Each structure stands twice: as structure tokens, then as C-alpha cells.
């Protein structure tokens, strides 16, 4: 990003090729619509382009760019009247009610069905939990980095991720 800030267009292209698919998937899984996802995706990268001079190395580029993606999603949720972030207390109760267990044996063999079930369960997660799971899967950020990117404490980020994982596993087991 620093090289791009000095006018190296090739540096930006390298960054883009490296992060385009995870970022696009993150946005698409969050909004559930390809057109909206592309709009947000393009807007996100234009913000990156316009920030080339003000960019400072305070964290990994990945953390920074996913933070932008998070903020852009918040704007989208507010604009569309969709702010269904679960409270921590609610999550705790949900987590307590979920039965822990193994993924069904048939789904381990039928990978295609397992993917369909997982994606369906992911779409049904609360936005905050889904975001935490997607950030872990797509960006490979740590809990601390996820917390920093989403603007919450580490504990909140950790619990959101735990609830997301528990729900997804439960959906895979229950469906079987």
C-alpha cells in the first residue's frame, strides 16, 4: 500500500489480486445479494484507492481493509434498516441451549450437501456472529484483529465467533 501511495500501480494490483476473492465472499455472504455485494465491493476498493496518501502502517493491511469493509456494511445495514446484531446476553442463552455434538456422519461423506447446509445455516446467523465467522474464515484474522476490525472488545468478538461455530455445527448435526 505504501508503494502504491508513491505511485506504483502494480503494487495495488498485487494487493487487489490477493484480497479480492475473500473480500468479495465476505461481502456477498453478509448481504446475500450479488449486485449489492459488487456495489459494496467496488466502493470498498475505491476507498482504498483514495486512501493511498493517508494510509499509515498501524496494523496489517488485511485488518485495515476488513475494517473498511465492516464500516461499509454498517452503513448498508443502517440504510436498509437492518441492524439485527444480537446482544451478548441473548447469545449466551442461545449458546447454552445448543447441544454440542459431532457433525453427522452422512454429511462428512456428502460434501456437497454439507456445504449447502453450512451456507444455509450461515445465512441464518445473526449479522454479528456471521461476520465474526466470515472474518475468521476469509481473512484469517486473529480474535484480536477481528475485534479491532469490528470495533468491539476481544471478548465480544470471541463469544460471537463461538456462538456462530456452535450454531453452524448444530445445524449440521440437527439436519442429519
Amino acid at each position: 500500500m505504501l508503494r502504491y501511495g508513491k505511485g506504483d500501480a502494480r503494487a495495488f494490483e498485487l494487493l487487489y489480486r490477493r484480497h479480492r476473492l475473500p473480500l468479495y465472499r465476505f461481502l456477498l455472504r453478509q448481504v446475500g445479494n450479488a449486485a449489492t455485494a459488487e456495489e459494496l465491493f467496488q466502493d470498498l476498493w475505491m476507498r482504498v484507492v483514495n486512501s493511498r496518501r493517508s494510509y499509515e502502517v498501524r496494523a496489517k493491511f488485511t485488518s485495515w481493509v476488513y475494517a473498511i469493509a465492516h464500516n461499509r456494511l454498517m452503513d448498508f445495514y443502517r440504510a436498509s434498516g437492518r441492524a439485527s446484531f444480537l446482544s451478548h446476553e441473548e447469545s449466551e442463552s442461545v449458546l447454552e441451549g445448543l447441544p454440542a455434538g459431532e457433525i453427522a456422519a452422512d454429511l462428512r461423506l456428502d460434501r456437497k450437501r454439507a456445504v449447502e447446509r453450512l451456507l444455509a445455516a450461515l445465512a441464518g446467523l445473526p449479522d454479528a456472529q456471521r461476520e465474526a465467522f466470515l472474518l475468521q474464515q476469509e481473512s484469517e484474522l486473529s480474535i484480536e484483529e477481528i475485534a479491532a476490525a469490528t470495533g468491539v472488545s476481544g471478548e465480544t468478538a470471541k463469544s460471537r465467533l463461538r456462538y456462530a461455530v456452535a450454531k453452524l455445527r448444530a445445524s449440521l448435526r440437527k439436519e442429519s
Partner: protein
Amino acid sequence: MTEPRDEELSRIYRDAEGPRPAQRVDDNIIAASQRVAGARPRPAGVRFARRWGTPFALAATVVVTFTLTLMVFERESSLDKMAPAATRADRPAKVLQAEPKRAGQPETESPAVLRPIAPAPPVPQVAAQRDRVQQRPGESAAASKPPGTGQFAPAPEAPRAPELRQQTPQAPAAAPAAGALSESAAALQGASVAALAANRPAVPEAKERTPEKWLEDIRKLKTEGKAAEAERELAEFKKRHPEYRVPEDLR
């Protein structure tokens, strides 16, 4: 703080067919990034020129146009002052306006324009007559100087022509004066001719006669009883020959 990944879930998630952004989205983003990277920050001078270039150019255009217009107007006005007559001649409308005024006024012309003078011919005639008299063979300059010929001295005549010319602007008033002048010139011409005729024999006689012969003639006049004529001749003789001793009988 670390949260171990659920590897089983992660494997299932990675097996999902990865959606991709449209190619046009990729192209738009890459093109925008290259466009922005190509536009390097401009130096302060370039930014200043870009900001103030257009206003300055407009102001300069206005100033130059105004100056040129002013110069053209000043040049035209100075040309009008330098050659007013030529400008009037070039403007028929002004001439037409001036024509009726001239017709109504008694003729007054500018000093630069002089008309032919009516009484002028007599002057050249007198001068020509004088020239003829002077050019006669056998007549010396001294003989032409006697009292009778003094009337034709060129000195008084020289200023006469300018005087006449100066009087011409008042044409109606000058006409009688010009007539009088022509009459006087004619009278002068006649008198000069008469004087010439009267003096012609005396001058040659005075020149041809010897003092003795002249004295003999005076004595003859005295004896004939022409005392006055004899006295006049004697006085003339004394003027001509002051050194000659006049005989006692003639004194």
C-alpha cells in the same frame, strides 16, 4: 487471546464454490487505481497557474483590448487635428452643411486662396512701358533720371501689388478702389508718355550740345526776347556745368 478454528467447519466452508466478482468490476477498480496513480501531485507553481491562469488571461485580454481601443481613438483624433481641411474634403456631409453658409455670406475667402485681381493689368502695363523706355537705344540711365521720369521710379510701385492683393478679400468694397487705382494708373501712364515726349528733345540736346553751344543758344534766346526761357536754360546749364564760368553778358 486465541480461538482455535473449527477445522471441520472450515473444510466444509472452503469446499463451497467460490463466488467471484464480475470481470467489469475488476477492470473498473484496476483502471481507477492506475488512473489515480498516474496523476502525480502537481507542484505548487502548476497548481497556482491552474487556479489563477484563466482569471489572469481574461483580465489581460480586457486590458489589452481597452488599451488598443484607446490608442486607435487617440490616433484618429490626432489625425483630425493635423489635417482638418483634408478631413473636411473627405466628408461630403460637412461640406454640404457649409455650402449654404458661404452662399449667404458676403464672399470672404481664406487668406490662403487669392483670386485674380481686376486692376492688376495696368501695373504690368506701366512696368512694361517703363521697361520700354529704359530699353530705347541711345538713352542712358542718367538721361532717364530727370525730374520728369522720377514718377516712374520702381520703389513706390513694388509694394503696390501686395497692397492690392491684401485688399481683395473685401471684394465688393475693393471694387471701386480697384477702379480708382486703374484710373490713376492710366493717368500715370498718360503723363509718363507725355513727359517722355516733352523731355525727349531736351535730354539729347543737353547731351549733344557743348557748353559753348549751349551758352550760344541761351544768348540767342535772350536776344530774341525769351528771357524766361533763357533763365531756365541758364539755370539748367549751371546745374550741369557748375565748374564752367558763365560769361558776363549772360549772368
